[in-house]
């Protein structure tokens, strides 16, 4: 090898145990799922790992399974593969929408829900949808497996609860309760290709009379992490989702937003639009729940 | 004689004169005569285009002038 020449190892472990060994032995090794964030950061010189640990050769991480309990998404399944699942689109339309919004068709062929979570961008499209669905992260590490709810997994921009030697292996999404449905919306300046300026997800449960008995609302790109908005949910539970209730939820969402000014949008804009999108997402989710 | 119109901004180099009648067979002769009459104008003529009877020459040279040509000095234009 030529001295001074950049050289980064490529590892493709076949088992979770091997992957754990690799990243525990070498904290500078980075898990490579879709690479749509990691390789861009590497190219920009933001991150220069000692090794790329490609986990897409581990069967557990590239599987999609739907059973009685719900959906199990391997952490390294690409977005396109998820969106192709008719059952996922039928049962979790909002989650499917969020997954389908991750980048272009090309990016869909690489980007993964696991990577989207682990990159921990405040604007990650899937995080909001996973939050309102009460999804749980399955983590493997030196001391075996543990689970962490999605709302506890991301702790800050680019930061997760993953400890040294740990990797995200799967995300579990419980089946929605009867007459429950989800929706995800985001605001981008163009019609495609942009990072969300604001994102909003909702999961709504209706009783036979159309009264909202349970609801989760989440907003993204308007705070250090995507987050649930309990106040918005409280404004909606027990109502028939009339305009005043929706308005109250929108205001709660705007109030919960703690956005910043950046190249993608102003704080004031994000705060206002967060409310608009929450109102719209709740309406869409409710209409879907009504048909279940 | 050809009538030569200067951009109004250049009047400060000609003592206020904005158009002059010049008897010149070619654009180059006309420019030389302008330089002779208005020495202060000389530098301003280095990167100028010349319109003769509607045709704009970005690189004015030895193109002929008619006795009654209508001549305008204009800034050069870069195309994309």
């Amino acid at each position, binding site marked *: 090898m030529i001295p001074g020449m950049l050289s980064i190892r490529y590892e493709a472990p076949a088992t979770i145990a091997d992957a754990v060994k690799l990243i525990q032995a070498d904290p500078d090794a980075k898990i490579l799922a879709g690479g749509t964030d990691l390789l861009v950061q590497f190219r920009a010189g933001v991150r220069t790992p000692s090794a790329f640990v490609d986990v897409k050769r581990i069967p557990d991480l590239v599987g999609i399974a739907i059973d009685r309990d719900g959906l199990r998404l391997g952490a390294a399944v690409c977005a396109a593969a998820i969106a192709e699942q008719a059952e996922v689109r039928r049962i979790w339309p909002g989650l499917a929408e969020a997954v389908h919004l991750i980048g272009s068709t090309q990016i869909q062929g690489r980007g993964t829900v696991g990577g989207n979570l682990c990159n921990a961008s405040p604007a990650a499209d899937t995080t909001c949808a996973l939050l309102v669905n009460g999804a749980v992260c399955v983590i493997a590490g030196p001391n075996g497996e543990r689970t962490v709810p999605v709302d506890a997994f991301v702790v800050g921009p680019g930061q997760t609860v993953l400890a040294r030697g740990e990797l995200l292996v799967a995300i579990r999404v419980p089946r929605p309760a009867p007459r429950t449905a989800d929706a995800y919306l985001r605001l981008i300046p163009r019609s495609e*290709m*942009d*990072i969300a300026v604001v994102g909003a997800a909702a999961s709504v449960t209706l009783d036979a009379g159309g009264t909202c008995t349970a609801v989760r609302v989440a907003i993204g790109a308007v705070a250090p992490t995507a987050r649930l908005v309990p106040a918005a949910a409280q404004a909606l539970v027990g109502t028939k989702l009339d305009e005043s209730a929706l308005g109250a939820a929108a205001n709660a969402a705007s109030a919960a937003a703690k956005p910043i000014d950046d190249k*993608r949008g102003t704080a004031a804009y994000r705060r206002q639009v967060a409310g608009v999108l929450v109102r719209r997402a709740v309406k869409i989710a409710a209409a879907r729940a009504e048909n279940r | 004689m050809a009538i030569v119109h200067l951009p109004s*901004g250049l009047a400060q180099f000609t003592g206020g004169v904005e158009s002059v009648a010049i008897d010149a067979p070619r654009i180059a002769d006309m420019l030389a005569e302008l330089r002779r009459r208005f020495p202060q104008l000389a530098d301003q003529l280095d990167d100028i285009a010349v319109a003769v009877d509607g*045709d704009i020459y*970005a*690189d004015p040279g030895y193109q002929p002038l008619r006795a009654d040509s209508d001549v305008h000095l204009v800034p050069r*234009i870069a*195309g994309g």
Partner: protein
Amino acid sequence: MSERTFDVVGTRPVRHDGVDKVTGRAAYGADANWPGMLHGALLRSPHAHARIVSIDTSAAEAMPGVKAVLVGAELPDTNASISLGEAAIELRDMSHSMLARTKVVYHGQAVAAVAATTLDIAKEAASKIVVTYDVLRPVLTVDEALAPGAPILHDDLVTKGAAIGPKTNTNLAARYEFKRGDLDAGFDAADVVVEREFRTPTVHQGYIEPHACIARCGEDGRAVVWATTQGPFVVRDASAAIAGLDPAHVKVVPSEIGGGFGGKIVVYLEPIALALSRKAHRPVKMVMTRDEVFRATGPTSGTKTHVKIGAKRDGTIVAAKVSLWYEAGAFRGSPVGAGAMCALAPYRIPNFFIEAHDVVVNKPKVAAYRAPGSPMAMFAVESVVDELARELKMDPIDLRLKNAVDEGDQAAYGPKFGPIGLKTLLRAAKTHPHWSAPLGPNQGRGFALGFWFNGGMNSAATVTLGADGSAAVVTGNPDIGGTRAAQAMMVAEELGIDVDRVRPSVGDTDTAGYTDVTGGSRVCFATGMAVINAAAEVREELKRRAAKIWNVSPDAVAWEKGRVIPPTGAKETKSGADAQPMSVAQVAAKMTHTGGPIVGRASLYAPMAGPGFGGHICDVEVDPETGRSRIVRYTALQDVGKAVHPSYVEGQMQGGAAQGIGWALNEEYVYNRDGVMENAGFLDYRMPVASDLPFIDTVIIEVANPLHPYGVRGVGEVPIVPPLGAVANAMRSATGVRFTQLPMSPPRVLEHIAAREAVAVGA
């Protein structure tokens, strides 16, 4: 000439270079690799404005694999300028912008270069070069640059033109004035006056292919450069001068070019690659990253414009005042002069005053971008004209028709117009179904005009006949959008042969006659004329050859649709039978016995092509709760003189419209306070994508240009001019807000909608 009927011109043959491009075979700038090739990398300034105190390259030079390191001080300093045909290139500025000497004047300006055996090593080595800076405060807008006490970019800058006040120790590089009539009297006579101030952001040409080249310089100083460029001869002359070589020893071979829009007229890498190659005695390849393209190649000017127009009740415009301030970037030379000349071009105005300011700021030096300078000025004027129509309660197209210039009118920029299609275009727009189609909720419709001069200048062409009657045509214009097909069609038209039997190609700087850049919408016009003339010369030679065969006088031989016709009485030499007409192939087959190869050559300098006008109709739909807008219908009309290959004319109109729409809605350079661009990538620069646009309808209007044998005008630049105003006028009708600042991105739109509603509620 307008009555002339054509056999080939106006048809839509498959382009000759097409198969190579759909199979991936066509070789663009970065697609070549030469034996023994090194890779070059640049160290770029982390500051937008700073003095260079010292540069230490020792660590880089010590790295294994590094073959050459270059700093600006090693390049010769030249004060020469080369004519670009259109605007002169100040080689000193270009050289300093390319590789800084004692000062950096924009973020990303190169300060040192490295050539190494691999790109990784070259980048690593460049990062080891230690530069000490004395950091200065940057100025990023014309207001900052002209403010009292503003940091000065260049101590030696002297204001050109009609300066008011001091001409030194300033960032004002030039000031121009145009006036006619009595401005004050004009405004006194006006019943309605509208006045607004506008701003447009720095935007980039956005070609998908980054700049790339390979240069090889021998021990004897003889060099070959492979480059993606709009102007191989500019690359040769500029590279030789900047690298300190004799142009006589430099050959430039143009690759296929992946877009340019004016941005690949300027030279950025080639002289550095040459200088590195001369040191290393090996070929050096340099390819920009997308980040480098955004930070360090020519965008076009951010601008401030102030427009005031007055009209009579009946819509007659009686006075106009236009003030323009254009950012030149870090070195003089914004397209503000052209902006000033285009601003009022469509209108007959008795009294006007136009002032234009060229201002240096700490941003990359601007490069030409499709109708340079016109879109920003006409955005402002067309917005004010639209407001005027509202004040006068007139249809915006009727108002424009009432004031439109026509043949014989004196243009605001000086000369009289020849035949122009402006009024024809306006009438066509008025009667187009789009103009009267119903609008949906939250939708609005706008119309705006665009003007561009269209270039002429130097062109040369050679047409060579094969013994089989096929023809090869060579010119020096890189084919950026189908010009080879158009040139082959012209040869086929003139010789009456099948367009498939014409081989068009782009020569290098040794094999093609000197030709000005592929730009200024000049290729189909000026180079096309050279091609037509060269083919006509072949035709005349064919008649002379036939005369020899028939033993008659050349004047007695007639030409008819690709055949030479013998005079009555002419006989076949062998049989003695009556001579029969001969095809091009039949005459060509005998070339050896009639005087040898048949070659036609032509070269010319054409004045500017004759003005081009375009008018666009745009429908937008705005989401009043989020400020997001969507183009729902779009129609582009343009006087093209004569469409040689209508498909590629439509393509130019559609592509120009799309670029203008991007400029209007989302594209902009976002800078932080330190003058660092924050969105230097396609993700956040936000050019239009396929799902952002509808089909773009085109209406080709053909008012023949008397300066061209087929009536061709330039086509490529005009269509980027109208969209800024057309979209803004549509937004006005959809939201009630007059947007005076681009881009009209969702946050800005929502903010203004809210402000207007606040006023409405308050009232």
